[in-house]
């Protein structure tokens, strides 16, 4: 059995709780996601455990359903951007030469186009579905992941043990996945944690551009925005989803930290 430190345990429990809530949303949520059941911004009560939102929908139910979209979309986009970005970057470094040059500059190029223009152009030529949303988010983030992964891999690629593997005649996949990746893991895992947060926030940004999540469905960032006006008047409807995002972020990163401490240790973790 692996001993899990308390902090990682907390992280795991909270993350798991959010995941489960998302998974079983229809079973748990007391009301429907778009159902108007009360007054505007009702305070917390036994009927509405977290109160109601700006037009009288049950906040708890919206949070539970919203978690679904948020976690699913953010997770899918993060995984996409991560695997693609890392593999591309590591391969570029390992293959080197003009492949590396061309790919890296191409990524720089894509990165230099303002996201807003990018998103709007995509929006205008593609149907707006969750899949497109995930693709757009993931692909935009690939550039960021790529640059980081490349920077890390570049330093590792010149190590003697990588040279030894080349000398053995190993192909690119082996060098990428077995020689470099394990040694690049900890900055990558840290970045993964961050990227997940950015994705959670990014979903709501894109939703407001009209891409993706359609009402009455919601995502947590979106619920924050829907209720943002109340914040300075002490109405918690916006703070609750913000709190959920923060706790999810912290939990995911607590887990990432734990993975990190296992990957940084040259002794296989302790």
């Amino acid at each position, binding site marked *: 059995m692996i001993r899990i*430190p308390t*902090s990682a345990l907390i992280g795991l429990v909270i993350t798991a709780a959010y995941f489960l809530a998302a998974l079983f949303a229809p079973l748990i949520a007391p009301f429907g996601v778009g159902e108007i059941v009360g007054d505007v911004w009702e305070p917390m009560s036994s009927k509405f455990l977290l109160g109601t939102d700006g037009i009288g929908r049950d906040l708890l139910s919206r949070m539970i359903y919203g978690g679904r979209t948020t976690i699913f979309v953010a997770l899918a986009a993060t995984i996409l951007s991560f695997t693609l970005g890392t593999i591309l970057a590591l391969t570029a470094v390992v293959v080197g030469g003009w492949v590396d040059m061309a790919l*890296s*500059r191409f990524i*720089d*190029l894509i*990165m*230099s*186009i*303002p*996201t*807003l*223009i*990018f998103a*709007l*152009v995509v929006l*205008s*030529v593609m149907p707006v579905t969750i899949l497109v949303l995930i693709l757009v988010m993931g692909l935009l983030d690939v550039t*960021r992941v790529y*640059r*980081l992964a490349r*920077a*890390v891999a*570049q*330093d590792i690629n*010149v190590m003697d043990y990588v040279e030894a593997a080349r000398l053995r005649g190993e192909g690119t996949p082996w060098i990428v996945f077995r020689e470099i990746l394990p*040694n*690049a893991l*900890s*900055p990558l*895992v*840290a*970045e993964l*944690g*961050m990227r997940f*947060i950015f994705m*959670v*926030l990014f979903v709501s940004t894109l939703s407001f551009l009209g891409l993706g999540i359609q009402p009455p469905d919601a995502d947590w*960032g979106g619920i*924050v*925005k829907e209720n*943002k006006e109340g*914040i*300075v008047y002490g109405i918690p409807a*916006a*703070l609750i989803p*913000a709190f959920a*995002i*923060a706790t*999810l*972020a*912290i939990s995911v*990163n607590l887990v990432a*930290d734990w993975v*990190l*401490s296992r*990957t*940084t*240790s*040259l002794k296989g973790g302790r």
Partner: protein
Amino acid sequence: MSFVVIKLVSQRIALGLLLLLAATVLIFIGTQILPGDVAQSILGQSATPEALANLRRDLGLNEPALNRYFSWLGNALQGDLGTALTNGKDIAESISGRLNNTLFLAACAAVVSIPLAIFLGLLAVRYRNRWPDKMISAITLATISVPEFILGYIVMYFVAVKLQWLPSVAIVRPDMSVFDRFEAVAMPVIVLTFVVLAHMMRMTRAAILNVMESAYIETAELKGLSAFRIIASHAMPNAISPIVNVVMLNLAYLVVGVVVVEVVFVYPGMGQYLVDHVSKRDVPVVQATGLIFAAVYILLNTTADIIAILANPRLRHPK
């Protein structure tokens, strides 16, 4: 050695310029693809079809795209960015004011946040898995995961409304003293710092931890160096390239991505400027702004690449 460096840097600069050229093409194409057009956007609901047609003709939207691209590029090379379709203002002039503001804000935020993030990162490594590390992580993660505008509202509410320490709107006037400018950007800087801190701090922490088990760290420890010196002077140089990349990413964000903070604090920067003109489909301005943003990205990315190579002697002097 310095020769190698000069060659590398000049190569990268040349490439950067080439990239910029490619970026202009993409931006131009992008602005052509964007649905909707300026005439409609300017006049909105109160316009008539004739008025629209008139405006369109006035704005030269009927010429072929290729001609427009080359004449635009030619003029841009001479520093002439043209005039805005929407309000007829000289773009170079109105951008320069906005750009100054943006760079000023970005610089202030960078000066505060980058050293702070790296310092906190080092501190987190120093007290790894102990409470200072956990505190730093939890707080920065919490601030980064809260949408920017909420941070903005909270800071604004406490600092400006409750305590009345600072003005709630960061409006800058041309005749402002430097001190007043600092005062104006104080709150945006606080918020931006919160926003960018975590990413840089976490990467510093992770990248350094990744090299902390190397044998040379042991050597440093056996030299009796202080924990902090070991981290800062021995681990850091070997972890620099991911850190630099993340720092550059955040710098780029500070220059091109602070729309929300600009809006909340009413700061006249580039972000809002771009958004306004995109939504009005004011193509020349979008192109000019896109050009500047692309230049910023390319410059920062190139810098990151160069630093990464300079920081690693094995890349600089391959075997």
